[in-house]
């Protein structure tokens, strides 16, 4: 229904720290894609995604994360998924995405 993207660039660890709040679905994934790409335009670094308050994600949201992962991998960086809720963990496992993202 809605998605809040709270972002901060950590100058010490040199990585983006992002919190996703709400739903990453067909309605919000376009904006999610634009905002994550804009962050990487600014700094092509590792990205930490805190998903503790991400209550819903589906293939459209996962598709965005896959695209972003491909981008950071070209610079030998990584995406760290933190605090995923059980529904997100299940989807990551079913789709094999738990093998390509670093799940913390």
């Amino acid at each position, binding site marked *: 229904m809605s998605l809040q993207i709270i972002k901060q660039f950590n100058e010490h660890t040199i990585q983006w720290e992002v919190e996703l709040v709400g739903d990453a*679905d*067909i309605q919000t994934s376009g904006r999610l894609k634009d905002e994550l790409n804009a962050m990487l335009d600014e700094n092509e670094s590792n990205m930490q995604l805190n998903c503790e308050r991400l209550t819903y994600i589906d*293939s459209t949201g*996962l*598709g965005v994360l896959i695209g972003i992962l491909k981008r950071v991998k070209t610079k030998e960086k990584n995406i760290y998924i933190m605090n995923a809720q059980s529904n997100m963990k299940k989807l990551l496992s079913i789709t094999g995405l738990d093998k390509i993202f670093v799940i913390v």
Partner: protein
Amino acid sequence: MVDNVTITLPSKAEFVSVARLTASVIANTMGFDFEEVEDIKVAVGEACNNAVIHSRSDEYFGINFTVSNGTFVAEIEDKGYGFSLDHYETPDLNNHKENGLGLFIMKSLMDDVQVFTEIGNGTRIVLTKYLE
């Protein structure tokens, strides 16, 4: 005893959550557990995503939920462009693409998935889950 719930929604992204919420309330009322309700919500959401993505402009799509004795069925139907099942490739889970996971996810989360589609003639997806 069979109960039917039918809703018609504009083929727009912002209405998919209406379908998801309706599906989860019905599933919850039927007695599915928390995880099963989530599974149903995601699967119905994916089918609705499909309807919206393949729609023509100014279109509506329909969902019919059937509740009968421990069987949940959601039938999502649209009159959009359809897609080619012959050209559908099961996702390679070692080489992920940004698109194409929806059908795979539906099949993983539901007990049965039937897809009827034809280019130019819309799509009907029937999702079934059984209460243990």
